[in-house]
């Protein structure tokens, strides 16, 4: 049976008094690839920030593995936050080598240096970045930075990996590599993945679940196949048909 990893209930969020997100009900499921779709400024990044506990919603509740993440002690909050990682639309690497960047999250968790070394090597190999391990992050290309940021997130082995428009800076070769990597991660590592993308063909290739947002509201959500084959709303039909 499909289990909810994240549940949003009556969530409303405001910026400068303006309602930017209004989600009465939304479930994100475990071990699935969920793709968030929607036009620009539809609330996708805000939703991701709320799920990743980077912001608190103005109203409502968000549950991560049945725990309400809104009212938590600092320790509990950190414990839950360390089970998820978001890779940002414009990732920034630290002024260090690629290896050190990928090891960063592990150092934050105070892990043993031998374990860190082994884990980082494994992730770099998995992401086909091992030949760049000693290169300074300042000397990586845009695509390499994007892949490095994903590797940095993967290294901490999160239960939930959030990718905010990860293909933006990538050429077609890297897009293909990243798509395959995400599918492999999902299959081999039992990881739940949320991806924001604007590329409809990519959605059909990767998504298990789709959530379509517009003006801060969920227009439609459900299994990708259902959404694609039998969209219930006019907006969904137009959006996936590429009209909007």
């Amino acid at each position: 049976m499909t289990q909810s990893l994240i549940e949003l209930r009556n969530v409303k969020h405001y910026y400068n008094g303006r309602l930017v997100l209004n989600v009465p009900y939304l479930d994100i499921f475990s071990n699935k690839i969920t793709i968030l779709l929607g036009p620009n400024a539809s609330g996708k990044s805000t939703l991701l920030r709320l799920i990743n506990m980077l912001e608190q919603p103005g109203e409502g509740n968000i549950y991560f593995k049945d725990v309400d993440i809104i009212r938590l002690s600092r320790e509990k909050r950190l414990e839950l936050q360390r089970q998820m990682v978001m890779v940002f639309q414009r990732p920034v690497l630290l002024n260090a080598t690629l290896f050190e960047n990928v090891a960063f999250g592990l150092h934050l968790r105070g892990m043993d240096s031998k374990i860190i070394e082994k884990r980082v090597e494994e992730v770099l190999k998995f992401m086909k970045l091992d030949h760049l391990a000693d290169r300074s992050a300042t000397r990586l290309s845009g695509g390499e930075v994007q892949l490095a940021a994903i590797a940095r997130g993967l290294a901490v082995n999160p239960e939930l990996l959030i990718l905010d428009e990860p293909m933006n800076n990538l050429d077609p070769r890297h897009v293909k590599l990243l798509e395959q990597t995400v599918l492999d991660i999902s299959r081999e590592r039992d990881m739940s993945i949320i991806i924001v993308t604007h590329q409809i063909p990519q959605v059909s290739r990767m998504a298990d679940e789709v959530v379509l947002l517009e003006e801060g509201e969920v227009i439609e959500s459900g299994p990708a196949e259902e959404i694609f084959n039998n969209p219930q709303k006019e907006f969904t039909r137009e959006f996936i048909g590429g009209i909007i």
Partner: protein
Amino acid sequence: MLESIINGLLEALKIIVTFNPEVYWVLFLSLFVSGTAVLLSSLIGIPVGTYLGLRPVPGFHFLMKLIYTFMGLPPVLAGLVVYLLLSRAGPLGFMQILLTPAAMIIAQTILVLPIIVGLTVVGVRSKEEALHSQIISLGATERQAAWIILKESRPQIITAIVTGFGRAIAEVGAVIMVGGNISGYTRVLTTAIVLETRRENFEMAIALGIILMALSFIINFGLYKWQQEAVEK
């Protein structure tokens, strides 16, 4: 004029190779006064700038406007304020440090501190905006995030120190007012240049100017190397 410049260059070389004690004292005092002012300003300004960069306090924007204004504080005004404070009738007159290197250090610290605070705030703030959410998302505590942002801001902080040093070493108005340009005691390179120009001893003035530029170049060379190491680490 060209002849004066060439003679000034030769005079500068002569002063350097013959170890003219008077000029070397002026050189040492210039370094000591400006170096101490930059050190004091850094010790105060970097923590204050970092704090403001990480946690904008209420009235942050007004405070920044104030800091920017003080970054352009006219040296003679700083000199005047320090003079009034330290003069015998002033509130700090009991310290009896007017017309001493200590007064010159205070005046230069007042000039350099806003530069170091202001540029540190801007540097840390830009790193904070770019990095904070990403670091927290990777599992950092707020304390870990602050430390990493500070480390990542190192090149910007070094720029603040370089700019502050440039302001201090080239400054003349404040030090001449509160130091008095006393030979062998409070005379620094810039005030010596003023004096030699007034005496129409242009060759000596140019020689001192060349030494000042050379000194500034050597120090900035070192600071730039330090900054590049921070950038390329």
